[in-house]
């Protein structure tokens, strides 16, 4: 999270991308020179199902303003069924965060294939804008983890 009084709020966005589809999709949007904001930082995981809810909470704890999880389209998982488990886990996790009053738009799951470079860039642009609108993450931040 970076706030500068003169500058527009720049959210910090963590994107978990599965190695086989979404990370390749992100690469493709690079290859095609499709812009998306520098706010987005990608972490590579073998499959979206590797993403533990703990990682998402960890990101918020440490000041991320939005977390997005990208995986292969349902039915296309490299490991055949990983993203189906992801879908259930994340639906329940997001629902719980919503239940606790955390802004819904800070979390998202998006299916991006290795061919969808344009979709990846568009998704990241859109998500960054949505998080920007929400402002800094205050409800799920651990103040002790801020810069001393």
């Amino acid at each position, binding site marked *: 999270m970076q706030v500068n009084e003169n500058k527009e709020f720049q959210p910090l966005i963590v994107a978990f991308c599965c190695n086989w589809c979404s990370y390749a999709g992100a690469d493709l949007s690079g290859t095609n020179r499709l812009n998306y904001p520098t706010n987005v930082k990608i972490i590579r995981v073998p499959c979206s199902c590797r993403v533990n*809810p*703990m990682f998402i*909470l*960890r990101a*918020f*704890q440490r000041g991320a303003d939005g977390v997005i999880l990208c995986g292969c389209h*349902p*039915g296309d998982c490299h490991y055949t*069924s990983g993203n*189906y*488990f992801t*879908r*259930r*886990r*994340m*639906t*329940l*996790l*997001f*629902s*719980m*965060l*919503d*239940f*606790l*009053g*955390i*802004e*819904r*738009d800070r979390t*998202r*799951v998006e299916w991006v294939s290795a061919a969808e470079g344009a979709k990846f860039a568009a998704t990241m642009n859109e998500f960054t804008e949505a998080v920007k609108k929400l402002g800094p993450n205050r*409800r*799920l*931040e*651990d*103040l*002790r983890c801020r810069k001393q």
Partner: protein
Amino acid sequence: MQEAMIKRAKELLADGSVKRVIGWKRGEFAYDITPAVFESAEELDKDFVFDVFTSANVSKYLVKESKKEGKVLVFLKPCDTYSLNQLTKEHRVDRDNVYVIGIPGGPKLDIEKIRAKGITGILSVRNENFTLKIETLYGEETMPFSDAILDKCASCKSKKHVTYDELIGEDGDILDSDRFDMVEKLENMTAQERYDFWREQLSKCIRCNACRNVCPACTCEKCVFDDPASGVENKAAADSFEEKMFHIIRAFHVAGRCTDCGECSRVCPQNIPLHLLNRKFIKDINSLYGEYQAGADTTSRAPLTDYTAEDCESSIVHERGVE
């Protein structure tokens, strides 16, 4: 009922079918009852108790007791049998080494609710026609029985025993309970209201771990919150994030496994309605993936280790309820 239970336990001890009996032990007062293991007829006669305050779910003790030599007899209320089934399903309890006698369920009483009426110095509690006569240091007090019922009993989901070797008393039915009403009420609040509600509740948490340690679904050999390698280990809720983190992860870990026995809220020394978090998951699972009752059987696949190609997308969270 208590006499019948003691009699049967003694018979089973005497003929050698069981070595030990898990039940409840009388305390100093009317209400401070401790789960206990009884090994002889004398112990049973002296201390075994079954009444309106024997609310503790003793199924979790079977994790340890069922692995000991010899069969163990356990008295389980309907809600407790769900916990046992779930533990059996997860191979935490050796069911073959357990002899289950199903006994009728509640409603059980909550001493805190009696105290909340300002009644103090409680010496004894008697139920006369659904009016509680409470003898105190400051004279006798009365209150309606219904006002003192434990929350978990007030929204009882089932009076049916899902596993037992024999029953004392009648078996009941699965009930239509109003257990999701409060969850729904919260869902209909605004995000800000929900946030405020939980901030107030969770800020009370003292991280005593009573909720976790009493929970029959929390039987991990090593809990992630006690394990420095997990990255979430911590001892104290030093920050509002930590409180949320603990309770979100705990609820998530038992999602699809929680039988909604209500023990977490019963034991919370700070009266945090923790069961609402678990019920939220149960409600979501029921509505999104089909009705599922953890512990109803020992074979079905838990919702989080299962999927269908047609499952809803997580964006459904954005589409329903109140922002």
